[in-house]
């Protein structure tokens, strides 16, 4: 079970009403390498993975939901008071037609989130390598969004999220090292 803390992992500040940026950011919300994919992937894989790394998947999967909430806050703030006209100018008319200014789990191109974005192979090495790849892809996505954004307050939050991808990748790499360890081998010094 989870306890909920009614605050964000890192403060989110948005200084411009910029629906165009929201259009790109939604990639990290409902995209293939977004936070929803990450959270669901890790929290699902942990049942069939060696005990030693279950806790890691639980912790990181949980943190991904905290990131999802930050992205949601950013998207919400970027579009909150945007008029239908502004949504149209930002290329969000199809989104507006279907959802008004509500958030939805789709990627920057408007494709709805799908479980085919994630995998649970049951093989610990295959699963952890997928997780490492997912973290690096999410890091790259954050870089490209930062490059597109000129909102320095928003970028501050995005840089935090990017750094967390680096740390998570590091931990998954360590998990692989744990599983690679030759437990029964005599160690000579």
């Amino acid at each position, binding site marked *: 079970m989870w306890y909920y803390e009614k605050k964000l992992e890192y403060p989110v500040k948005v200084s411009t009403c910029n629906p165009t940026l929201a259009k790109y950011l939604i990639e990290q919300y409902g995209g293939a390498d977004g936070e929803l994919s990450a959270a669901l992937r890790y929290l699902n894989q942990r049942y069939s993975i060696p005990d030693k790394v279950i806790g890691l998947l639980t912790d990181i999967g949980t943190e991904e939901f905290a990131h999802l909430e930050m992205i949601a806050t950013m998207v919400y703030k970027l579009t909150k008071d945007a008029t239908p006209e502004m949504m149209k100018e930002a290329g969000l008319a199809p989104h507006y037609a279907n959802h008004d200014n509500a958030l939805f789990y789709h990627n920057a191109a408007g494709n709805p989130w799908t479980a085919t974005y994630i995998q649970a192979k049951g093989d610990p090495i295959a699963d952890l390598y997928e997780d490492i790849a997912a973290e690096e892809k999410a890091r790259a996505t954050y870089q490209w969004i930062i490059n597109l954004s000129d909102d320095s307050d928003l970028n501050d939050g995005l840089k935090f999220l990017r750094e967390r991808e680096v740390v998570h*990748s590091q931990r998954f790499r360590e998990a692989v090292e744990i599983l690679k360890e030759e437990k029964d081998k005599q160690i000579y010094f």
Partner: protein
Amino acid sequence: MHTEYKYWYPYISPLDPCPPIKVKSYNTPPNLYLGFQPPSLPQFQPREALFHGTLWPALFSPYPNGREDEVTNE
């Protein structure tokens, strides 16, 4: 100490329609090099740790400006 960016020089064709970007770069954050994190690494103060997104300077990866100066496309 590793560098945060690596650079490469793509082939430039005389028929390329756009002005060429002579040097391309990609990001190589510290997690690629650290291996299993050694114990007792120096830590940030809690407030700085929050701003950096990590407890350990060894895992901090600045973006867009890495420790190496970004090569400009001149």
